[in-house]
């Protein structure tokens, strides 16, 4: 086995391995920022997966490209560009594409149009900027290992606000998501809820992609929530599993990358993909087993006891 003379080495002593990771301030910040992002993206992503708005989330993540390049062009902080474009993108999808009356395929076509427009604008900004956009790699893959204390604080504030807002909207949003006609009859503002959620999604994506990049947002937004929903249909356990899987993916990915020459983003994405794959396989096995066990129990038909 070839040992690298300068790099840290991993052994069987887990305590030593972990404390070695925690010796560096940049690693502590990366673990904290990754944890904050995992919790926020997991919770917001859970609602996104349930609402089948994964494509909208993907489109909002793409807003980071025109956001970062536009900010560079204007000479303002990249974060401003992220938030401006993600906010505008959420409104565009909500008003133009997401109107409840439209069919699902029409909505995704319109969302795709918004995405194409955003990418074209990013392209334009890059060519207007002329120079090489040095940040391009961090736009795509983030800079998890370079999170400053100020960034960590800002990220925590945004995440806390997003989670509180989501908790406040949770039940009406759930109702409007699965059953919009009944929710509207109860007087819930279905359209406003839909736009509010997209705005929340935009906020979460913008905050996250500053640190983990466009690509990673997706791994943390979709994979943990989709895995949890494959494993259970009970809302609270499902949310808990989402957060736990998100934290596992981020921390494991960061930990492995510390001892490796490959970037954290790679490991985080690969692990989240593996988790999703395992969850789906597990769910399929469970479904097969329950089908074999109770072939007749689930048959529809008039039930005894219904007719008095």
């Amino acid at each position: 086995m070839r040992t690298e003379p300068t790099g840290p080495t991993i052994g069987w002593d887990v305590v030593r391995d972990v404390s070695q990771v925690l010796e560096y301030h940049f690693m502590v910040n990366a673990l904290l920022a990754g944890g904050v992002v995992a919790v926020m993206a997991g919770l917001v992503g859970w609602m996104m997966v349930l609402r089948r708005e994964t494509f909208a989330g993907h489109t909002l993540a793409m807003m980071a490209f025109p956001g970062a390049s536009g900010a560079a062009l204007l000479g303002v902080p990249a974060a401003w560009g992220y938030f401006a474009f993600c906010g505008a993108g959420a409104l565009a999808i909500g008003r133009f594409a997401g109107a409840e009356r439209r069919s699902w395929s029409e909505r995704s076509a319109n969302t795709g149009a918004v995405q194409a427009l955003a990418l074209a604008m990013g392209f334009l900004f890059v060519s207007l900027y002329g120079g090489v956009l040095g940040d391009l790699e961090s736009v795509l893959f983030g800079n998890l290992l370079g999170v400053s204390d100020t960034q960590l604080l800002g990220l925590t504030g945004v995440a806390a606000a997003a989670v509180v807002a989501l908790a406040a909207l949770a039940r009406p949003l759930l109702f409007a998501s699965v059953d919009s006609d009944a929710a509207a009859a109860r007087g819930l503002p279905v359209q406003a809820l839909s736009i509010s959620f997209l705005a929340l999604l935009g906020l979460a994506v913008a905050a996250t992609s500053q640190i983990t990049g466009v690509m990673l947002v997706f791994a943390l937004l979709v994979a943990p929530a989709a895995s949890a929903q494959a494993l259970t249909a009970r809302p609270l356990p499902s949310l808990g599993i989402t957060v736990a899987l998100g934290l596992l993916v981020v921390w494991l990915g960061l930990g492995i990358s510390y001892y490796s020459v490959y970037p954290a983003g790679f490991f985080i994405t690969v692990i989240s993909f593996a988790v999703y794959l395992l969850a789906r396989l597990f769910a399929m096995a469970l479904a097969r087993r329950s089908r074999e066990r109770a072939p007749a129990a689930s048959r529809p038909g008039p039930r005894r006891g219904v007719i008095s």
Partner: protein
Amino acid sequence: MMMAPQRASSAGAERPAGAHGPRAAVAAVEVRDAAVRLGGQTIWRELRLTVARGEFVALLGANGAGKSTLLKALLGLLPVASGQIRVLGRAAGEANRAIGYLPQRRTFDPSTRLRGVDIVQLGLDGDRWGLPLPLRWGRLGERTRSDREQVWRAVEMVGAGPYARRPIGELSGGEQQRLLIAQALVRRPGLLLLDEPLDSLDLPNQAAVAALVAKICRERDVAVLLVAHDVNPLLPYLDRVAYLAAGRAVEGTVQEVINSATLSALYGVPIEVLRASDGRLVVVGQPEAPAHHHDRHLLADGAGDRHAD
């Protein structure tokens, strides 16, 4: 940090005055000469309809006759162009918290990862902001417990206990429909508005759901206005029917309404009502309402084609 449930929707305050209350005389639904216009088109006019407290009334009519439109008008979701609508003694839209509404044709995507009982629970607290605190003790714990009991009472009432914990998307149409009725029922409403709950069910399930609704109507003393395409599964249970066609409605007992003379006068074309040996009614010759409302004048002339459903 979670927020406590905000709105004080204590069940007692919501509940409409029952049959013994001071408003016992007030009808559950009272529509007087109402008309609704949509997209410049009059859907129906001079419509009169009364549903007494605790009564089971079917709202019949072909596709596109305006049955769903009437339910939406009762909920105040659509404005009336003229006339007056009173629901549970109040203006349309003001009594919605005391109405259980089942919108037309909702099936859940097979991938919907919520359980049946969660769907029922949304009928109870889906319009409360904030999250419930998962407390076991104290006033909020008490409320969590009573909410849960209320949800399970509704689930048991529709006989959905054996499958209420399974994901809603995996259930059959009949099972989903029962759970949706439980959702409409969970707040103990004074009025149920059910839009085609028998639609897309096989015949045994139609009979079972019709019997279930009749049982709920009797045992819970709730008025029911049920939209249906076919009156036959409901015949043993109905107090009265309302028949909507050609922009008008007639109401009365089944015998008064579903006969050749009344329906011919309503449609303006000869209609024949046959009674099969098993008591089933067969209506022959009624023109199906056109799929597009700009074709409506054809219907008034009696020249509308019969459209496949």
